[in-house]
């Protein structure tokens, strides 16, 4: 008899393993998918690099420092996208009736939704983020200490949690939006874009939206300021660079509230 934990996880493992096998079986299509995803990462980095091709310092940061911000935030986003990126396709599941099938199974709805798909191609973005991070760590003026390494590790894990929370939040809101699913792109993909920017250039409204409500500024920019020892812009205090786990907790509380509201609102059409 297997122990209770692995018995509990067995159905999810079986589903995920089948998804992974399915994607790898169409080799040409999978290779093209991987190539395209890698290109997504490269183009996003190029968009940052082009700005620094024109100026040397932007928002108080040099290119190596912003490469650190980009690397941390983009890798965290890529992993969150791998795990939860399909959750914001919830309206498709609602329309097709797939969601009603989830209700019939003895596992929690959200866990089933998360485990319902995994897009391996999204892993192809990681090397770009990793390369940017590596370049930043070598080229930027990093103040190395055990605390720096701890800060980078904590930030990366919290970043994954923050972006995952944004996807769950989007899924919850989409019970209400259905046809208006694009609205959540504003903070999910807008959040990714914002997370790779030096937040010093933002207006007050953007600082509230992406610094507090959807706290992506904690996934890269604020911690990197501590790593390369630059002052934090108003209104973020210096210790905020260490506060990524707090931001992750807040993002998850917000996400779970959105999800609960959405599920309570949902009425299956039956069939």
């Amino acid at each position, binding site marked *: 008899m297997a122990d209770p934990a692995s018995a509990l996880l067995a159905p999810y493992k079986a589903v995920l393993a089948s998804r992974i096998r399915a994607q790898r079986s*169409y080799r040409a*299509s999978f290779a*093209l*998918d991987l*190539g*395209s*995803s890698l*290109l*997504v990462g490269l*183009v996003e980095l*190029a*968009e940052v690099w*082009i*700005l620094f*091709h*024109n*100026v040397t*310092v*932007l*928002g108080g940061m040099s290119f190596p420092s912003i490469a650190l911000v980009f690397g941390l935030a983009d890798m965290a986003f890529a992993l969150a996208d791998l795990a939860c990126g399909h959750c914001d396709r919830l309206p498709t599941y609602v329309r097709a009736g797939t969601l009603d099938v989830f209700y019939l199974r003895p596992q929690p709805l959200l866990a089933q939704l998360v485990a319902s798909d995994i897009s391996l191609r999204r892993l192809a973005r990681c090397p770009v983020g990793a390369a940017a991070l590596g370049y930043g760590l070598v080229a930027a003026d990093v103040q190395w200490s055990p605390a720096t390494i701890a800060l980078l590790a904590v930030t990366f894990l919290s970043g994954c949690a923050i972006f995952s929370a944004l996807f769950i939040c989007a899924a919850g809101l989409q019970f209400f*939006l*259905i*046809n*208006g*699913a*694009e*609205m959540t*792109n*504003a*903070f999910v993909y*807008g959040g990714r*874009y*914002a997370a790779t*920017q*030096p937040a010093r*250039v*933002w*207006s007050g*409204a*953007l600082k509230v*939206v992406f610094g507090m409500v959807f706290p992506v500024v904690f996934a890269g920019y604020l911690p990197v300021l501590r790593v390369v020892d630059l002052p934090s812009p108003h209104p973020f205090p210096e210790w905020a660079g260490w506060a990524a786990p707090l931001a992750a907790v807040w993002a998850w509380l917000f996400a779970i509230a959105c999800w609960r509201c959405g599920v309570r609102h949902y009425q299956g059409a039956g069939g």
Partner: protein
Amino acid sequence: MRAGVRTYWKLVVSGFRQESHYRLAAFAGLVANVTFGFLKAAILFATVRASGGHLAGYDVGSMSAYVWLSQGMLGMVNLSGTHELGERIRSGDVAVDFARPVDIQGSYLARFVGARVFTLLPRGLPSVVVGALTIGMTMPATAQPYLLGGVSIVLGIASSFGCVYVIHVLGFWLVETRGLQLLYMVVSGFFAGLFVPLPLFPSWLHDAAYATPFPSVMMTPINVLSGQLTGLAAWHSVLVQVAWLAGVLLLGRVLTSAGLRKLEVQGG
């Protein structure tokens, strides 16, 4: 051509009316457009200021015009690569399209242009108005850039359709075109100047972009409309748009007739 101008005009109108029913979707698109607009404006203004107020022909006012015109156009042109045709080819429904007494490429083009021109009302104009009211932007004071710019926008919409049509028609051979679509989404947005205007590109990358049809999709209409390009230069770039449009539509036609010979649909 089996159908007259009247038929295609009716298809344009039907596309326009169909799109007008999705009001929440249009509002959602506007929210996303405006959010991205503010982020783009923040980083691009900082870039212009960091280089002393003038950068590659832009000051803050004209950069603002670029930001908000590009956000306004985002709902009008197809930079995502998605279209129903791919799925219809995969499922075989495309056989119904071929059985209709109108040209398949022409009828999809007409409906696409109609639907996308509609998005000007709930997405395009409001994005520009939000930008103009909150940040302010420099726009030309004479009529000509707006008239030629209007033509240029329609050419941009049609060119984006022409490119996407080619991607989907390749489904006759590839069946699964999702990888190609993703590739199109990445490359077209970058080379159309969606996040960074093309004049800021290093020269080799700038040349690479102009070797593709994508600047014709978005950068050219913005340049003409905002008065970055005037006089002969504006007319010249609109002619380049016409040439690209003719090229991608022709390629689509050739592929369609080749694919038709390959297509086999079961049923009855």
